[in-house]
């Protein structure tokens, strides 16, 4: 456990050694802040029966910066160490490979969670100032942040995998973006085309991040997406682990 925490500590700290972290934090705060502002404005103009949480998380303005942060968070994780050769000293210490893989993933996910922490205060402030509930029920808060966490896990694991396949950060970033974008588009198919096959429709909505978000921000917490994201994360991390060992052994 101590070994894992030591590795994790280095991962988390390493985000703040590089200027990219601060750039990401800065733009992410602007994007989510603006997004929240847009959500509030939207509610002012319309009389739709939705909450500010729902309004904030279900727009293009939300999804675009959201997808963009994962390549930035994860691109460094493995690519840089493969390039510098530092895995040789990491893995010849009494450390197990799965601890390295989990620490990298947890570090990326931890940084992602830190990005979201301030946004929580927007809704608290909204509630205090307007006297209205920001979400219809506590469940909508919980649901929104739960889904953000699940999506974050899945997308971080994709980013880690892409980075473990790269030696240049840029390649890792492009690959991550392409993969997440593809996964995300997959869930949009029903919005674009008229899918008539009911089985296919079900399948698509089973994996559609947008539909999950629409449900969870309304407080409808379904166990199927939870299982979907957790198992996909585990699967991607497993592949990540295999790739890591393979590349290390080939070195």
């Amino acid at each position, binding site marked *: 456990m101590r*070994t894992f925490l030591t590795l994790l500590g280095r991962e988390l700290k390493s985000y703040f050694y*590089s200027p990219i972290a601060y750039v990401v934090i800065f733009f992410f705060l602007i994007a989510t802040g603006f997004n929240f502002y847009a959500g509030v404005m939207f509610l002012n103009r319309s009389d739709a029966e939705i909450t500010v949480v729902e309004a904030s998380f279900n727009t293009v303005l939300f999804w675009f910066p959201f997808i963009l942060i994962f390549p930035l968070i994860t691109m460094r994780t493995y690519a840089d160490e493969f390039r510098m050769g530092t895995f*040789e*000293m990491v893995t010849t*210490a*009494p450390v197990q490979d799965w601890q390295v893989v989990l620490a990298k993933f947890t570090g990326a996910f931890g940084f992602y969670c830190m990005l979201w922490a301030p946004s929580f205060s927007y809704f608290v402030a909204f509630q205090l100032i307007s006297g209205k509930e920001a979400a219809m029920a506590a469940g909508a808060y919980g649901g929104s942040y739960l889904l953000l966490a699940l999506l974050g896990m899945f997308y971080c694991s994709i980013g880690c995998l892409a980075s473990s396949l790269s030696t240049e950060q840029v390649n890792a970033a492009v690959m991550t973006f392409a993969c997440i974008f593809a996964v995300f588009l997959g869930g949009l198919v029903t919005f674009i085309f008229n899918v008539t096959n009911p089985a296919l429709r079900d399948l698509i909505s089973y994996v559609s991040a947008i539909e999950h978000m629409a449900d969870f921000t309304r407080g409808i917490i379904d166990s199927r997406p939870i299982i979907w994201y957790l198992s996909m994360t585990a699967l991607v991390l497993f592949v990540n682990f295999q790739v890591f060992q393979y590349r290390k052994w080939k070195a």
Partner: protein
Amino acid sequence: MIKVENLTKRFAGITAINNLNFEVERGEIVGFLGPNGAGKSTTMKILTSYLPATSGRATIAGYDVFEQSLEARKHIGYLPENTPLYQDMRVNEYLRYRASLKHVPSSKVKERVGDVIELCNLREVQRKLISALSKGYRQRVGLADALVSDPDLLILDEPTIGLDPNQIRQVREVIKNLAQKRTVLISTHILPEVEIMCSRVIVIHKGQIRASDTAENLLRNHRAAGSMRLEASTGTDDARSMLAQVPGVKDVTEEKDGEYGIFQLRLEANTDPREEVMRLAGNRQWNVRELLRRRATLEDVFVELTHSDS
């Protein structure tokens, strides 16, 4: 401490090491000697569990490096070739991180890091970023890292490569000091280093062991030939062919220096025909102004052993 049996490693198309067998006893300082590409780093990477072997096995302190790799690694302090370090950390921060990865008890981390900083003369740079250090300092940070858990076994891959002569001396000093109670396997292709530091030499070439002995024994027993230099005025004699007939002399070259001839005699292994040469000179009444025998050096032995087609 180290036991290697029939160890083989193949990369796509290349056999980097081929059926290696050797042992290193506790307390020995063994020089692992061989030209570039001989397979030194590959062997060390297998010993430290970084690479899996294709076949054969190796144990560290009785633990198999593949099956019980975690236990084996606890005994090792390893300095990889080219000393990869986290550039974005400070020296003391990096060493604390390494100490804690290597299971140094939390309460001891500070003390151990202080000790290795002292030992490797890193005190004045301990708060600097590693990326800002010179090559010599980085090498010493790598050494400090290898030492921080106070391991029984040090595996050092070319610790002095790329350093200037002063830095080489400093690093050698450090290694010599710390070798006293440890087992050390150190790879190098710098020969004086081996003669100064090592109690035994393993010569490896093209993935195979060519010799394993003390430097003295290698010199004494090896086929590497010595040479002799004679400066004498030999009048009208055909001194060259006369010298060539002395038993133990392989061949002779001659240069003129005024009245004197300078003869270079290549000798067969383990021969010392100085007396015969002096007798010949006396009989022929040559004026000898110099007779010098050059012993085979470790370098000669090394060249002989690792000559491409030998």
